[in-house]
């Protein structure tokens, strides 16, 4: 008996020591200014709706987890092997089976209804008429962007036309493509819906902005034009490729600048002026 308790003590000592080890690692972490354990601050309209659903699932699953584990651990302690106490002889209970089949089924189907509704609202719904369309080209290993010129239209493009002298595959027969200009930075005005026209030159890449709660694969050989979002916060963000695309994947990113409408107009005017300038004067690459 004494031997056994000694063994138990050693066991607990080891466990505690391990936790202390783990804790000491934590305490060496630098002091955090932003949220360490949670989602980055949301910065788009659709993202706010998605966060509501995330929180709903969080509380639902958290509740289920705590409830089942409390019951489970209670059983594990209460029904540990004791001298003279025999286990209950039971092969189950059909009514219980029915209950714990029906309740999860109802919850899961309800959750599907909620989330599918939201999926439609956020992604599939018609974007408002003032939506600005921006072309996004992904390649090993970077992004570039194309803006509509003064006519406000990107014009027709076709992935089969993509080439070195026509990176976005613009259709030369469509006059709307003539005044388009390119940018290395994704500059967008705040509170204005933006639709991205996604194309890839080589392998599958992705358009991922965690603050906007947006992810979409960019598949070569086709154009994906259903992703739109409305940024709600002025600031700098990073667009990241989140689909393994080769050895440079880890560093495939682009800057996103969400600015006020005034600042955007100013930037836009500079860029269109540079684009319309006669050949020979280098187009400004900075924003």
């Amino acid at each position, binding site marked *: 008996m004494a031997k056994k308790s000694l063994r138990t003590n050693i066991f607990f000592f080891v*466990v505690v020591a*391990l*936790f202390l080890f*783990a804790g000491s*690692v934590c305490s060496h*972490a*630098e002091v*955090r200014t932003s949220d*360490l*354990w949670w989602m980055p601050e949301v910065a788009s309209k659709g*993202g706010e709706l*998605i966060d509501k*659903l*995330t929180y709903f*699932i969080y509380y639902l*699953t958290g509740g289920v*987890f705590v409830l*089942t584990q409390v*019951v*489970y651990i209670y*059983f*594990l302690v209460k029904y*540990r*092997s004791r001298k003279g106490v*025999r*286990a209950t*002889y*039971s*092969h*189950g*209970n059909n009514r*219980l089976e029915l209950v*714990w089949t029906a309740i*999860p*089924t109802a919850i*899961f*189907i309800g*959750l599907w209804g909620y*989330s*599918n509704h939201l*999926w439609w609202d956020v992604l599939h719904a018609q974007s408002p008429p003032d939506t600005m369309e921006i072309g996004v080209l992904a390649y090993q290993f970077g992004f570039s962007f194309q803006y509509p010129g003064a006519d406000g239209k990107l014009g027709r493009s076709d992935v089969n036309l993509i080439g070195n002298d026509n990176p976005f595959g613009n259709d030369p027969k469509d006059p709307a493509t003539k005044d388009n200009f390119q940018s290395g930075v994704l500059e967008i005005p705040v509170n204005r819906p933006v639709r991205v026209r996604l194309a890839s030159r*080589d*392998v599958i890449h992705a358009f*991922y902005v*965690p*603050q906007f*709660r947006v*992810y979409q*694969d960019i598949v*070569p*050989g086709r154009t994906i034009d259903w992703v739109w979002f409305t940024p709600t916060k002025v600031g*700098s963000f*990073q667009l990241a490729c989140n*689909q*393994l695309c*080769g*050895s440079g994947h*880890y*560093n495939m*990113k682009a800057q996103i600048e969400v600015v006020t409408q005034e600042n955007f107009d100013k930037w836009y005017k500079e860029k269109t002026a540079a684009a319309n300038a006669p050949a020979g004067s280098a187009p400004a690459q900075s924003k």
Partner: protein
Amino acid sequence: MSQTLAHPEASEVESSHGHHTELSFFRKYIWSEDHKTIGLQYLFTSLFFLLVGGLLAMGVRYQLAFPGVPVPVIGGLLPSWLVTSAGAIQPGGYNALFTMHATVMVFLVIMPLLIGVFGNFLIPLKIGAPDMAFPFFNALSYWLFLFSGIILLSSFFAPTGFPASGWTSYAPLSAHAQYNGTQIGQSCWCVGLFVNGLASIAGAANYITTIINMRAPGMKMFRLPLPIWALFITAFLLLLAVPVLSAAAAMLFCDLNFGTSFFSASNYGQPLLWQHLFWFFGHPEVYIMILPAMGLVSEIVSVNSRKPIFGYKAMVFAMVAIGVLGFIVWGHHMFVSGMNLLLSATFSFSTMVIAVPSAIKTFNWMGTVWGGSIKYTTAMCFALAFVSMFVIGGLSGIYMAATPVDLFIHHTYFIVAHIHYVLFGGSLFGVFAAIYFWFPKMFGRMMNETWGKIHFALAFIFFNCTFFPMHNLGLNGMMRRIADPTQYEHLRSQQPVNVFITLSAFALGLSTIPFLVNFFYSIFKGPKAPINPWKSTTLEWTVPWPPPHGNFETTPTVYHGPYEYSVPGLEEDYLPQDQPAPETVRLTAH
């Protein structure tokens, strides 16, 4: 009907192979057609691959915590495709590490550990058969499996090294050498998986035939122990899903080497076709890797609770439901792949529905421990932990099943946490439980319980320290498969979490040492095991060790279901399947 095959073969095997001296060393240990030897061959081989896969994971974790820092000690010895001249892991080498970590763990560790080891070892012993239906195929299956592992790992010595386009090998990255830069490695990946698929198909056909035809008299389908049911359903999944992967791998091989364009973006190829084929295999594969563990754990929980399994038939039907529904949920890996948005809605629905049978199983495990008399053996500890970890892995899956949330956490560390809770906290804990539990029948000796408990405590603690914070990293927007998180502004403040995870992962890796020492020491020096150390009811515990070639001296007769524990009116608290209940005792089920 069921004994027609079993009887003559049993006597035949007994007479021709009864004397061990008749078998040459080669026939006994190398090309053995005895299901028990093949099971052990699978065990040793896949434990070796477990070490390989674990070391690759250590490399992955090292890079994420200390990007750009030369690997201490071994850095200078590693090949140039993996590390820079200074000995730090290169981004491309990092891609190779996680690609091979996942490929090895899925195809060379979890599948063979669950299906190869316990399928081979347990099926004939538990159904009262002398061997598998096709012993030759069984031996062939093992050697094909070993061969596939050698092919996969041999690319280490190629100048461009391991394949590096992820275990999912999405085309066109994987289909063109100018994009992935690892033509030899990627070709080895295709061939290795093709050969591995042959091994799985041969094994699966064998299991199905054996379970249908070779059950002992009285062993009705609803008297089969749950591990056998699980392996039976898994074998169907293998038979239907694996050929699709084999075909896709062959097509990818042609794209890569012969200029075909099945999956190219040009020449009428279709990159999404690869994803559909891969996930049509890949999602049933997820259940292939968890169903057998569920079966093994069900039995261990029942035996150690000294209680019949709660809702035996509900357990069986839940597994059948998982098996069937598993074939119509693959699209949930592709919500944001560019697939039609309407399809996402339907796949989201089937995914929500498939969560139901998993919930049913969890409730039934809880029902089994309720009112029990629980013995906390090491096997039981791992089995009970399996249930909790599976609950976490199941609940985190709901986030991804909700399409809008997937829009945010797709391809982040949240999914990495999810899959490891299911595959490590689930499948691998189930494997550990099963090894501790069936070790006495495999090697005739007992493993050390104290060291077993130490292994359990370390594995449990460091598993959670390693994988739980990954949920948080995922919610923070940390992408998976990036070699250097510090490149991103929103991730730089997360780096201490990555360091913590890495240190925990190293500790988790080291926690395997007590297991391995205990395992190999006990094989030779462990105390001799009695025939039925856990006082279990199923047939494998009626044969002595070593079970003779042919297993049973006389074919057993089965009188009732597999889990008759604590039957009122009996002195012993268990009633073996080959013993009829006395007339005074009434069994309530089966």
